[in-house]
């Protein structure tokens, strides 16, 4: 299961200290040779809200299944809450709440009876506090009134919320939520997001996967981006934004003259399009560029340093667009 040789060349080993999740060269090759996850090195700091972003089919769910011990990696190593896996699964998993690929419950049992069932499966759960913990979890997701209703009669949103309640049954150090807002109406989506923010306000680390950029952007402090089984970027959101490379944007009725001045100043990537000229500022301070333009007699109507939006950044990284929520 875990490779003997350790991390592949060029990949630094995961630093367990302060990491809720760390993986090194995590790979899953399914029978038939299809590589679903290819050498992923995740580093999810404790206390972060980590958005795991990628188009459908990019390997997010398979990665999550490997993290939770449901699927054995073909290669690579991983740790949860500082414990090397899979040896530490039994001691780490009671401290991890998870929502994997949608809710799954016993349709003929009530919401409450379903939670009782999952609580019974956790050998670390204290049976003396079961009732109060279940009542609290149901209350937290707003399902107290429907506790005695059969799961079969639950709406999609209620099912999703019950799954989150199951993840919150015990005090958790890490929550792994796979597409928690999938299939929810806008109202349900808002509720779930609010809940995640509330959970994250405590000490719990939240690892949330999504194919919706806007969702991740609203909730998360850190981001990891998957593309075709590979992790193409990860880090704090602010850092990723700054790394995107800003552009000078000049609005002028004399684009040719402006482009000439900027080129003469040694700027790269000068492009004129209609009345807008853009260029990469490089080492040149923007105010200096502006002064050069004015001294050069160019009429400047607008001058700005623009950073690409996260979306532009990720379209570049993943090669495809994200569904933007309406």
């Amino acid at each position: 299961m875990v490779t003997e040789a350790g991390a592949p060349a060029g990949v630094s080993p995961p630093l367990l200290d302060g990491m809720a999740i760390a993986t090194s060269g995590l790979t899953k090759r399914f029978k038939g040779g299809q590589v679903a996850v290819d050498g992923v090195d995740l580093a999810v700091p404790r206390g972060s809200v980590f958005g795991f972003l990628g188009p459908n089919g990019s390997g997010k769910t398979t990665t999550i299944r490997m993290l939770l011990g449901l699927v054995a990696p073909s290669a690579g190593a991983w740790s949860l809450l500082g414990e090397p896996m899979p040896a530490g699964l039994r001691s780490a998993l009671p401290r991890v709440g998870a929502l994997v690929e949608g809710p799954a419950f016993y349709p003929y049992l009530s919401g409450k009876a379903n939670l009782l069932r999952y609580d019974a499966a956790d050998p670390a759960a204290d049976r003396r506090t079961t009732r109060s913990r279940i009542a609290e979890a149901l209350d937290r997701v707003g399902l107290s009134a429907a506790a005695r209703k059969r799961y079969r009669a639950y709406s999609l949103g209620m099912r999703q919320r019950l799954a989150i309640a199951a993840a919150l049954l015990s005090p958790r150090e890490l929550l792994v939520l796979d597409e928690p807002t999938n299939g929810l109406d806008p109202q349900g989506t808002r509720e779930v997001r609010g809940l995640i923010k509330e959970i994250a306000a405590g000490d719990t680390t939240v690892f949330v996967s999504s194919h919706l950029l806007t969702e991740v952007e609203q909730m998360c402090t850190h981001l990891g981006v998957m593309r075709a089984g590979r992790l193409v970027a990860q880090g704090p959101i602010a850092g990723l934004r700054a790394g995107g490379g800003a552009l000078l944007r000049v609005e002028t009725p004399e684009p040719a003259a402006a482009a000439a001045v900027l080129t003469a100043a040694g700027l790269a990537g000068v492009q004129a399009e209609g009345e807008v000229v853009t260029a990469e500022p490089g080492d040149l301070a923007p105010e200096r560029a502006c002064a050069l333009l004015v001294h050069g007699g160019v009429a400047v109507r607008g001058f700005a340093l623009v950073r690409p939006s996260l979306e532009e950044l990720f379209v570049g990284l993943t090669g495809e667009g994200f569904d933007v929520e309406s």
Partner: protein
Amino acid sequence: MSSPDVLNDGRGDVRQDLDDDVRREGGEVLREGGDVRRDLDDDVPSGGGDVLNDGRGDVRRNLDDDDRSGGRDVRRDPRRDPGMRLLASEVGLTFRRPRNLAMLGVLAVVPVLIGVAVRLASGDSGATLIAQVAGNGLVLTFAAFAVMLPLVLPLAVSVVAGDSIAGEAAQGTLRYLLVAPAGRTRLLALKYANVVIFSLAACTVVAVAALAAGLVLFPVGSVTLLSGTTVAPAEALLRAGLVVLYAAAGMAALGAVALAVSTLTEAPIGAVATSVVLVVVSQVLSAIPQLSAVRPYLLTSWWTSFDGVLRSPIATEELGHGLLAFAAYTAVFGSLAWARFSAKDITA
């Protein structure tokens, strides 16, 4: 859960070690860490227990010094829960599920139907078990097993055992049980324990229903055994109890086969159907005289050996062979189920 100090203390040290290792040995750290962790695992829960129960610990030390350490392991370390809670949950789920209740209902109705049929067709007197029922209601219990052991009881057990893993997988609940974490070996063992309990319950239902129907429909008296001797009603009841236990053992062996099949698929109907087909094929094989050499190796041929209980003295050798065959089937298919389930990728 509520001993953060102790947990953190322990972890802090280990992390330090791990951290050092990271710098020194790079890639091998995760494996190395496994050892360190294992040590920690042993240490933390008992240490946590001390802190948690300090107050109570003192009281108990005064009360009974010897029992203290033993009591602590069971009561204070939740991680060593052998699974009674999950087993109770399994059994509760099995006996609350409408489908299973309906099956138990059918198992109770069949002996009654046999009794009613015999009553309506009275006047027929033969030497078979069923014919004897008209003269003695107690015999209905044995007749019911003779009729139901070849197919009806195996069908019911196949449904519960075949569904046990595949049904959870198809429903998606398997992944949440494993993430809880139920533990794969532990979950499989508890699932099998549940199958054994269901087998015993199914056989008991048949016996009780047959006994009740027999008492209502027919006169009751001493029972003439297959070997010709006659025993008192009380002893006949005792022997009926032995039949229940033997039949339940045979059904539990089938349960192990169905459980193994259940780990191979995510389609519960497929697992149930496969188990039933295996039973039928086995019955067909044992019915072909030219294949009599394979009979002793077939699970099904030992089920009907329950009539060894109806001889005087009881045919212990025959029954012993049967129990041995059941144990062998349980061991082989239990191992297969474990080997498969402990390495299976849960993708449903």
